[in-house]
């Protein structure tokens, strides 16, 4: 039936006590009194453990413990008060010593005493729970010492009472009271309850301490209650008195402590709110990645932790202002206040949280609500102001320093949140960019010739090394007639996918034009005409177009802003740099007027070198360019070798030169070797 072993034990002890009481209804024998007291104390002990377990199970708030004590106390008050009237009839024989009071009286008094067992034990265990609640230091020893002395005091009551050792009894009693008082002062949990609870606690503590005092006085009074307890067990009586003193002391101290806490309760409440909000918010920052959600939370908490009536965030993005997360304010008012802050130059260069009040009458009269105090806190990342957290108070109220500090903390958090969301966007952007570059590289690969042409009088070799970002290099060969071979090398301005698309366009233009027009100059003029129309104003294409008449052994050359052609002949490098502006840079008339075409007679073993600035602008550790000098030197050195060999040699040299520096631009190298085909 009863599963709890402590309760079983307690009930067994009570039955034992009842049997004992019925057998030895009264005795002067020390031994018998001691056995009686020991049984009583043991029962209380077991009951304490049981009640402690029950309290721990429920884990009640301090205030509900207090209320429970109050209810039990009130009940005890009525029991004591009416004990005279109700019980005197039953206990008329109590006064008379050595008389069997009878079974009914004994059982009734047992039940009466049991009520106090429960009441007193519950009070003690509640005090124990309150004592340890939110205790920061280890105070166990104080409480345990007190329990020991209470025990000693109870035991000594029966043992030493009326003897010459009575002073021992008194000493234990006094020490117990001192310890009770000492332990009653430790009320650390009061700081953790809110103002409303403190106010109700104030009222409760007065009533309960009064009840304890009344009960204490009543116990001492010459009434049935006192006699009955003493008769039942002197130790129980002593325990009852000590507990009532404890209660009176504790609740008196509680009253005063609470009273002193009332004036600061508001500040405590707000600080507690601030701390819990901060915890909540810092958790949120790491979990919520959507900036708009965070902004809402920031303004929400701003109102909670400060005395602000309204709050919003003003973001500055690319010079544009955007108001977000408005709380408790009309958009028109927010707009008006923002404008006011900007026009009165209050917001422009602030680096710290600042308190203002709207002192412009015109602005104030325009507001639908009477906003007075304004608090502006900059949201910063890496010293750049990204926006402002703005809070406002209504009804002529202004902000104080505490509001400033609280809001500043939150604006700092908000800054972190902005930075987080920015970093996230950046990584998304980076991923997107990488994908885009993959596409660009793929386009470029498809645009460039997959194999070099094979001709009788000309050996051709080429190398293309793409840069990570796709530099927009393009080259191509066209075998347009039986004895005609043309080539083009170009560099599109800009990088990435946009450069790749222009390359595709450029390839289309040259592929078409090379079939219908012979002259490099005419081809470039036509190309400029098309590109001038299609390219955006800030992009252009540098190109070099050459055409070789295989029969006449002549090279015709036109250059539109591209790197010059190097011709290695007789251990000398000759630079051919006919005048010409990059494609798309100028109107066609001007372009045509300034474009030159050169004609070169080709000699045996001539080496023609075409390249893009990716080669000459390759950089070493000291950021020096590879330059055209090194290029021609190495070309001269290897002039008698095959085109493939020279290409390898130059690329090798460029790679070694710029090995410590990452390749920034595409590298393109084309070498044409006239009549040196090794068969």
């Amino acid at each position: 039936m009863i599963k709890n072993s402590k309760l079983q034990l307690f009930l067994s002890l009570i039955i034992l006590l009842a049997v004992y009481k019925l057998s030895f209804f009264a005795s002067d024998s020390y031994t018998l009194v001691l056995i009686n007291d020991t049984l009583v104390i043991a029962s209380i002990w077991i009951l304490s453990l049981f009640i402690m377990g029950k309290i721990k199970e429920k884990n009640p708030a301090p205030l509900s413990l207090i209320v429970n004590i109050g209810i039990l106390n009130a009940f005890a008050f009525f029991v004591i008060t009416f004990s005279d009237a109700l019980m005197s009839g039953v206990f008329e024989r109590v006064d008379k010593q050595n008389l069997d009071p009878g079974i009914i009286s004994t059982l009734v008094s047992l039940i009466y005493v049991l009520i106090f067992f429960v009441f007193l034990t519950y009070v003690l265990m509640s005090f124990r729970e309150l004592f340890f609640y939110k205790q920061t230091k280890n105070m166990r020893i104080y409480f345990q010492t007190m329990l020991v002395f209470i025990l000693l005091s109870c035991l000594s009551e029966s043992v030493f009472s009326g003897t010459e050792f009575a002073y021992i009894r008194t000493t234990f009693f006094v020490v117990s009271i001192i310890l009770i008082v000492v332990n009653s002062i430790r009320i650390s949990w009061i700081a953790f309850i809110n103002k409303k609870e403190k106010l109700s606690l104030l009222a409760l503590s007065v009533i309960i301490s009064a009840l304890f005092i009344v009960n204490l006085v009543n116990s001492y009074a010459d009434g049935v209650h006192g006699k009955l307890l003493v008769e039942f067990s002197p130790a129980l009586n002593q325990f009852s008195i000590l507990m009532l003193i404890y209660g009176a002391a504790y609740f008196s101290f509680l009253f005063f402590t609470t009273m002193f806490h009332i004036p600061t309760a508001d500040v405590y409440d707000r600080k507690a709110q601030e701390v819990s909000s901060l915890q909540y918010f810092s958790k949120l920052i790491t979990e919520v990645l959507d900036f708009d959600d965070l902004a809402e939370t920031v303004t929400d908490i701003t109102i909670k932790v400060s005395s602000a009536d309204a709050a919003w965030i003003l973001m500055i993005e690319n010079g544009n202002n955007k108001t977000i997360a408005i709380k408790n304010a009309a958009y028109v008012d927010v707009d008006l206040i923002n404008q006011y802050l900007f026009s009165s130059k209050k917001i422009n260069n602030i680096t710290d949280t600042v308190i203002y009040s709207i002192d412009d009458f015109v602005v104030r009269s325009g507001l639908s609500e009477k906003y007075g105090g304004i608090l502006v806190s900059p949201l910063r990342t890496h010293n750049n102001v990204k926006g402002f957290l703005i809070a406002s108070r209504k009804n002529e109220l202004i902000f104080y320093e505490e509001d400033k500090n609280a809001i500043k903390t939150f604006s700092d958090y908000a800054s972190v949140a902005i930075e987080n969301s920015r970093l996230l966007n950046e990584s998304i952007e980076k991923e997107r960019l990488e994908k885009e570059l993959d596409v660009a590289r793929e386009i470029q690969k498809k645009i460039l010739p997959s194999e070099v042409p094979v001709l009788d009088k000309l050996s051709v070799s080429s190398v293309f090394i793409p840069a990570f970002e796709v530099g927009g290099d393009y080259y191509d060969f066209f075998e347009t007639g039986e004895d005609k071979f043309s080539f083009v090398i170009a560099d599109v301005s800009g990088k990435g996918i946009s450069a790749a698309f222009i390359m595709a366009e450029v390839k289309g233009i040259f592929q078409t034009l090379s079939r219908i027009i012979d002259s490099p100059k005419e081809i470039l003029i036509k190309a400029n005409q098309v590109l001038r129309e299609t390219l955006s104003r800030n992009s252009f294409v540098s190109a070099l177009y050459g055409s070789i008449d295989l029969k006449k052994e002549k090279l015709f050359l036109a250059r539109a802003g591209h790197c010059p052609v190097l011709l290695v002949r007789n251990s000398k490098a000759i630079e051919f740099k006919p005048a010409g502006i990059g494609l798309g840079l100028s109107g066609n008339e001007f372009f045509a007027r300034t474009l030159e075409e050169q004609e070169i007679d080709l000699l045996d073993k001539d080496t023609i070198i075409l390249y893009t600035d990716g080669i000459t602008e390759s950089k070493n550790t000291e950021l020096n360019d590879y330059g055209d000098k090194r290029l021609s030197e190495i070309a001269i050195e290897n002039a008698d070798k095959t085109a493939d060999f020279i290409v390898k040699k130059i690329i090798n040299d460029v790679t070694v030169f710029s090995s410590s520096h990452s390749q920034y631009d595409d590298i393109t190298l084309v070498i044409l070797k006239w009549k040196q085909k090794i068969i």
Partner: protein
Amino acid sequence: MAEFKTAIKENGNVSIINLAGFLDAHTASSLESEFTKLIDSNRYRIVVDFKDLAYISSAGLGVFMAYIEKIRDNNGDIKLSGMSDKVFNIFDLLGFPLLYEIFKSEEEAVNKFKEINSSEK
């Protein structure tokens, strides 16, 4: 790449943009915004000084092309000055000397504008 900085100063009705550092595809936008600002405030006589510029890429060159038509339509011009040999070579290769007046120093470029000023009066 490394940093890029611009600074604007005024000399009469001529605005001078000083460039420093590396002007490439990544930094070109900050020069673009300087040009936009000048054009928005109707200042069309612009000298770009390259004295402290270490490097310019093709995207950097594009910036000058983007605004020149609008500026010339408004009776203004962009004049370039103080280029190092390396920077000049890049401009030269593309044929920029045919499109822009390039001066040794900032003063010469400013004076050229002043001459036009006085001849207009």
